[in-house]
């Protein structure tokens, strides 16, 4: 009995002592994000190759992934592309899982970045991300991902993937403007509007990803 009381007191004390630290997401001054046209994209993966080349990546890690979706029954078929790298989420799921604090969000533009000198390659971020953005590179045991070519942004240029797009269907800009239809871009055609969510994509309410799509008619969802 005494032991039990002692334990209860101990536990209460421990609970008091343990101040739960809640991660406060960085609220960027301006959040950059991608826009991709799911239909007009020919799926050529020039963006992917440009990204791999820029980052010196071997086969394996793919910062940008052009996914092919197809459906229907012969001969009434359809196909479209979903092109994603890191979505530089407003509430990134990867960030709080990092045990070393290697992942952080840039205040000025909302880019989610990994400091590879701190990364221990535990891959927890990889498991946490609902979009598959963090990529483990077995050649050096690090998790790496898209940093929106922040060096190029600094130099006043667009990321390599966007600058590579032969169809001009991928672009980057302030995500609020993209969503409000105020962002002028060749990626968004004259009669197109963008959406936050498409079919088969993780619910955007999870992390609030900074990406918008011009969706295929078969990919529209209500969220």
């Amino acid at each position, binding site marked *: 009995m005494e032991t039990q009381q002692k334990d209860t007191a101990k536990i209460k004390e421990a609970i008091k002592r343990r101040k739960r630290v809640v991660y406060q997401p960085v609220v960027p001054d301006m959040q*950059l994000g991608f826009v991709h046209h799911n*239909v*007009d994209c*020919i*799926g*050529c*993966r*020039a963006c*992917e*190759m*440009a990204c*791999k*080349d*820029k*980052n*010196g*990546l*071997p*086969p*394996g890690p*793919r910062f940008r*992934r*052009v*996914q*092919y*979706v*197809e*459906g229907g029954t*012969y*001969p009434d*078929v359809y*196909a479209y*592309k979903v092109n994603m790298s890191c979505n530089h989420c407003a509430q990134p799921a990867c960030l709080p899982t990092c045990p070393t604090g290697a992942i*952080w969000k840039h205040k000025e*533009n909302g880019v989610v970045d990994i*400091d*590879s*000198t*701190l990364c221990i390659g535990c891959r927890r971020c990889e498991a946490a991300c609902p979009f598959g953005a963090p990529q483990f590179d077995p050649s050096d045991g690090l998790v790496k991902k898209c940093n929106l070519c*922040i*060096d*190029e*942004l*600094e130099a*006043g*240029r*667009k990321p*390599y993937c966007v*600058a590579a*797009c*032969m*169809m001009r269907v991928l672009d980057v*800009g*302030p995500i609020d403007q993209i969503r409000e239809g105020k962002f*002028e871009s*060749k990626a968004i*055609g*004259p009669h197109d509007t963008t959406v936050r969510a498409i079919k*088969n994509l993780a619910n955007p309410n999870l992390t609030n990803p900074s990406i918008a799509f011009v969706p295929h008619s078969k*990919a529209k969802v209500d969220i």
Partner: protein
Amino acid sequence: MSDTLKLLKSSLNMTRRGFLKTTAVGTAVAGGLVGKPRDAEAFAYEPYYTDDQLETVVTSCAHNCGSRHMLVAHKKGDVIVRLSTDDGTHEGAAYGTDTEQVPQVRGCLRGRSYRARLYSPERLLYPMLRVGARGEGKFKRVSWDEALSFIAEKMMYIKNMYGPASIVDQSYAGASWSVLHKSDQIEGLLGRFLGIFGNRITSWSVPSYQATTFSSRTTFGDIKDGNEDDAYAHTKLMIMWGWNPAYTFHGGNTFYYMRLAKQRGCKFVLVDPQYTDSAAAYDAWWVPIKPNTDAAMLAGMAHYIFVNNLQDQDFINRFTLGMDFGTMPNWAIARGFENFKDYILGNGYDGTPKTPEWAAEVCGVSADDIKKLAHMYATTKPAALKASWAPGRAAFGEQYNRMAAAVQSMTGNIGMLGGCAEGVGKAWSGEGVGYPYDKYANVWFQAIKSDCWAHCVLNYPNVKREEIGLWERPDPTDGQIPNIRAIWWQGSDWFNQLTNINKEIAAVHKLDLTVCMDSTITPTAIWADVVLPIATHFERHDVALPWYKGHYYIHRPKVIEPLGESKTDFQVFTRLAYMLGFGPIYNPKASPDYFESNENVDEAYLRDWWYNRVVPNQLIPQEQEIIEWEEFKRRGIYKFKYDHPHVAFEEEIKHGKPFPTSSGRIEIFSTELANIPDFTKTKYGSYIPPIPKWIEPWEYLGAKEKVKEHPFHLITPHPRWRTHTIFNNVPQLREVYEQEVTMNADDAAKLGIKTGDTVEVYNNRGKVVVPAYVTERCRPGVVVIHEGVWMDLDENGVDRAGNPDFLTLDEPSPAGAFAYNTILVNVGKTDLVHRPGWDKLATARSHVFRRDT
């Protein structure tokens, strides 16, 4: 700079920030090694250099796709650290400038992966001589002197023993269409070298597009039947006939201009056994057709147009020959030739009306759909029927291309913006020749259809001229069957690419000499006696231009020093020419030390080209900005500006200039073909009708007996992740695209095949092993394997890589078209092993592909 970019820039903190500290510099700090910068590496995640810390050199890609795009090399020391592409600044405009008139020329996925090829483990660095059996792949490293002396001695021996028609020139476009260092089937550096030497058999038929070349020459008198790609933005109906620009990237910005057309309301149709990515991107109406039956479907469309009187009769009367009775020449009527309309309506010799119902039986497209498409095409103006090359790479492929030209003509969609007469599709013509060009440019002593060499070798001397498509000669050597003793491959992987590879393997052992010049080891090089390492376009000075569509020149300076002991083709031929006694004739600007030092000579050739060819012929005052050679070199690119898109045959249609045919008209009825008395005495070898007709191919789904044993029709289109065989060794590309057989879901279910299963595809000519991709996007009865994968034989001669040319037949069409898409096969599950690449890299597509039901 666009407003967007200004916004981006102003909203960013421009000071140096964490990212750079923690990468390029940060590693050194963390390791306590401050002050010792590491050398740049080609593929390094760290240290990371920003573009502005690297030296920037404008150059271009250089593979044989027809396009040409800008690559910008960012280098440190002698290492290219990364590649970017056109961003508008190099032509002197603001960053991001990209207009409809002057678009950026952005590199495709292949171009962007070039460094992986440049620095690949397969890169050839030293001359090598074969030590094992031919094809065994055993070589020893030798000096240049030893390698070249070996070749020179063998050449002399072969010439003395077997005469001037015993070495086959199999140069091809592996390093194509640059101004100075040109590998080319007809007029490249090798052709001139062998021509002066006095021993050359040329290979006259072009693997990619001989059917359409024949068709356009015969019909329009010119292969320049193409519009520039900006013209595509102005069409209202685009019929992509077997055309997949999302894969071929044919033309600098073709695919993008088509997107603009779509935004402006253009409707798209795809006639193809596959629902391609082009169909998806342009939201096309898919008309799945049986392979090799295109001419029949087009005939059915022509029938509908004629019986409903939807043809442009005024256009027919003014511009065509033999479209109908009224346009038939009198001499042809007198000699009893039938005209095209009579053939279509059944008033000709076969008495069969080519009704949509008749066509439906042949091509598997319903008569209603044939009528619907014909109606759309005949009533929409302007409408583009883009008759691409692929359906012509078939038995009697020329009939398809000729039939398409007839349908294009009867609707009057030629010579107008938004219409289309393609065909070949070649549009703007650059000045492509900066190398010595004189009477030796194309000397040959016999010329054969390009995939007939093995047949000739194996059956010599019991070969008939018509079996190998021997070109006519105006002297007593006409018709002499060549005794082929050697093959020379320059920038060419033809051993991997010509039809019926097993027959080639049987024939290659009979030769006295095989030489291969390339930058990487290739499947062809494995069969060579001598392998010569050739400098890539990053390692020599040149100028690039598109040969298909696009109007610009891109300067290609030497970006890095040649790797290993590699030399340029021009250096190698010049050295050999000196050894054989004709050095100064072969390379007039060079001295014997050109092999060691080529920079001044190459600069002199290119400068001459600029001032003697480009400036006087193309830089027309008022229309174009005139710039000096030094200024061009400084910028790196020169884009021509035109007020209106170039449209083929505009002069002929709008201003009455005669077509360059013998009649001056669009020859639906061919004067030349009608006047050939004996086809066996011509390069064609067998009969070609003077008007386009449906002719049954030797293998197709309508061949009832043959399909019992081999029920699937295999087609072999061009892949997106290779240019033919080039880039097959880039694992970054193979990671996302697999060499596989595409098959219809119902067909696969009957055979118990699922996506990812390993299957064998076979016929009487060979067998290949590939994984299956099962989809609803493919017509039943049709299977698809992309061409160009590097063959990888097991001990029983089964190709584990999946090269479809083990299944093709080495019997070209009369006009010379390769029958790459005329193959019946069977498919079944197998325990044999598929090998995706020589480096055994495993690839998986499960993570990139998914089905949405």
